[in-house]
């Protein structure tokens, strides 16, 4: 696909790199020649100029591109650039809009503006962190149907009751989860059938509702107490969003922030959280505020070095789940070698969101894919399809459908109600269906059927 990225900042550069690896044709527009110089090692075309002017956008070939992504510094510029790009004839537009105050207004006019998607990197990061804090034992969590269905990946511990269990027997436990992919050893990936026997050490991916997942973790002997007490070090945008989500989840939140002004504004916007004005790098303050008793500690200041130090300190005094935000993407092997808990790179998270959208967009050219994740190390895909009245699979009980062998239906979402499918369930028009498969290139719900042999 032809993609124009307007703005060569942190996220713009990361996006260019990642989308390039997916084989797209990338053009990057930026006002500053120096910013463009930093991406000169990538095989992309660069256009120097103001990304809001008609001339520059034309020069970048927006009129023939499939997607324009505006990631300049201000929300207004991004929206305007997308608006002009849309008028010039680009297929889809994505704008980065940070200011939460705009969110509602933009939702109102999104269709009029022709925006395909808006992205708030801080909100996306906060949501991802919150997901991990709600189920701290999962390695990775992906969501479908606007968060109503989750795909968890966990490693079965050695003493798990699931060790040596057939999946058929698991079904009898009425756990409400569906194991849809199993990784064993370094290379093997299975889409398991009922006779599949689990082993300790398997990395299983399963589909479940968020609440069911927590119960399941408990049942299979993985400690998964959702965190109740959270301490956030640093009071930036991510902290704000994360605090709001954790408060909604019923956890108690304590934020330590060094700027009095920010503290006041936070306490106004988050009346249920404890806002502490103080230096989070002060050991005594952290001890005083009870860092030892926390279930989770997240280092979210704007300075990577401080985050690393605070996380290392927190690790040494508590058994809490540690979350560390790192802005820099360099020295990644050093970061990996330190015990910093779950490390988050906001710009990767933002870029991932867009890459995921682009994949789904590419997959959905003429098809009805809603969401797409590459799971288990890109060896399998989890896709969400929308069933239309024309779909051949509608109305027939699943057990009577001739499905492809390497494929599994993980969940059916009917008007927000999630069904864990059994053989007697049917797919109805309007449902969205989560499918896990090792086959790539499924474009339509009907592709889940085994191809009928051509009849002579």
């Amino acid at each position: 696909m032809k993609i124009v990225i307007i703005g060569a900042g942190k996220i713009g550069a990361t996006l260019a790199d990642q989308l390039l690896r997916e084989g797209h044709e990338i053009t990057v527009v930026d006002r500053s020649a120096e910013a463009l110089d930093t991406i000169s090692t990538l095989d992309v075309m660069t256009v120097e100029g103001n990304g809001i002017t008609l001339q520059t956008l034309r020069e970048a070939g927006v009129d023939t591109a499939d997607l324009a992504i505006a990631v300049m510094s201000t929300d207004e510029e991004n929206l305007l650039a997308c608006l002009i790009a849309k008028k010039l004839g680009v297929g889809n537009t994505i704008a980065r809009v940070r200011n939460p105050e705009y969110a509602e207004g933009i939702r109102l006019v999104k269709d009029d503006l022709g925006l395909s998607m808006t992205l708030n990197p801080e909100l996306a990061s906060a949501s991802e962190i919150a997901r991990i804090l709600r189920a701290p034992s999962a390695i990775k969590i992906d969501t479908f149907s606007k968060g109503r269905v989750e795909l968890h990946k966990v490693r079965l511990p050695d003493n798990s009751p699931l060790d040596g269990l057939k999946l058929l027997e698991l079904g009898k436990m009425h756990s409400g989860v569906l194991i849809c992919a199993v990784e064993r050893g370094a290379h093997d990936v299975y889409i398991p059938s009922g006779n599949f026997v689990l082993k300790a050490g398997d990395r299983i991916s399963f589909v479940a509702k968020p609440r069911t997942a927590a119960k399941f973790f408990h049942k299979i002997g993985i400690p998964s107490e959702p965190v109740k007490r959270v301490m956030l070090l640093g009071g930036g945008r991510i902290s704000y969003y994360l605090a709001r989500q954790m408060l909604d989840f019923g956890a108690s939140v304590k934020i330590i922030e060094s700027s009095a002004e920010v503290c006041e504004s936070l306490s106004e916007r988050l009346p249920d959280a404890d806002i502490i004005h103080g230096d989070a790098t002060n050991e005594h303050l952290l001890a005083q505020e009870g860092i030892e008793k926390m279930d989770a500690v997240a280092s979210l200041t704007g300075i990577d070095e401080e985050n690393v130090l605070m996380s290392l300190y927190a690790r040494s005094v508590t058994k809490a789940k540690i979350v560390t935000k790192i802005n820099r993407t360099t020295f990644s092997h050093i970061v990996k070698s330190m015990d910093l808990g779950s490390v988050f790179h906001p710009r990767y998270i933002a870029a991932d969101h867009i890459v995921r959208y682009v994949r789904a967009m590419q997959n959905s050219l003429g098809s009805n894919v809603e969401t797409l994740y590459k799971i288990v190390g890109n060896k399998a895909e989890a896709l969400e399809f929308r069933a239309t009245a024309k779909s051949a699979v509608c109305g027939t009980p699943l057990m009577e459908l001739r499905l492809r062998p390497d494929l599994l239906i993980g969940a059916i979402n009917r008007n927000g109600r999630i069904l864990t499918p059994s053989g007697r369930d049917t797919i109805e028009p309007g449902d969205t269906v989560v499918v896990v498969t090792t086959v790539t290139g499924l474009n339509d719900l009907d592709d889940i059927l085994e191809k009928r042999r051509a009849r002579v």
Partner: protein
Amino acid sequence: MNYRMIFYLLGDVLLLLGGFLLLPVIVALIYGEGDWASLLLTAAICAVPGGLLLLCKPKQRRAMQARDGFVVVSLSWIVISLLGALPFYFYGATPSYLDAVFETVSGFSTTGASILHNVEAVPHGLLFWRSFTHWLGGMGVLVFMLAVVPLSGDSLYLLKAESPGPSVSKMVPKMRTSAMILYGIYCAMTLLQICAYQLGNLFGWGEISLFDSVCLTFGSAGTGGFAVRNDGLASYTPYIQSVTTVAMILFGVNFSIYFFLISRKFRLIARNSELKCWCSCWRWCPCPATASTCSRPNPPARR
């Protein structure tokens, strides 16, 4: 330094050179002047080590640095010049190997200086190769390699090292597509010029053999200037000379302009200062030259 990568890419270049040498071999076989053996031998000399160097396929591809790019580009220009000189030496067309190297360097760098006194005594196969080096050097062997050999993203360093100036200007996002477009335009214009010469035959504006027209086209496409007659262009008719002149001007234009022309981005052409400068040069210079050419009587037909 990533030696495996450098050797691997050099192997690619050598194989490519061997392939290119097969073209003059065909020409030599058509004319049957006995120079085919020297050309074929050189092709073999290129192909064998080239194939062996391909065994150096690097294990991980994302390890090429900017300086590796510079080394590959400079080494490959040296190597193709040294090897490209071998046919002249083997056949004995030049007094010594050093002279042959001079001739080839002049060809690949599209300089056009020659040490040959009597060009017409050189067999056709070698003459074709001599002009062909101009054509290859005009767009660059490495650009051709970028267009045909699927390489990883690191090959951007090759293009950077190959192109003059600090920044690489690309016409489309993908470097490989850019290289393909460049060679596409180059080939199309080459064909056009050959056809223009042949029109002279058709309408009686001046006789020129297919061999001469191809070689002259190579010379002007690469903006080099090797001719195939001792007196250069002097013995051709004004029509042939005019075609050559126009072609030389057109091939001197930055090829991005032609791409903009094809993709109908006329505004970008109008803003291009390089083109403006080039045009203003030619607005005045050709007048006296054309006048002197046209006022001269046709030279006697040669046979």
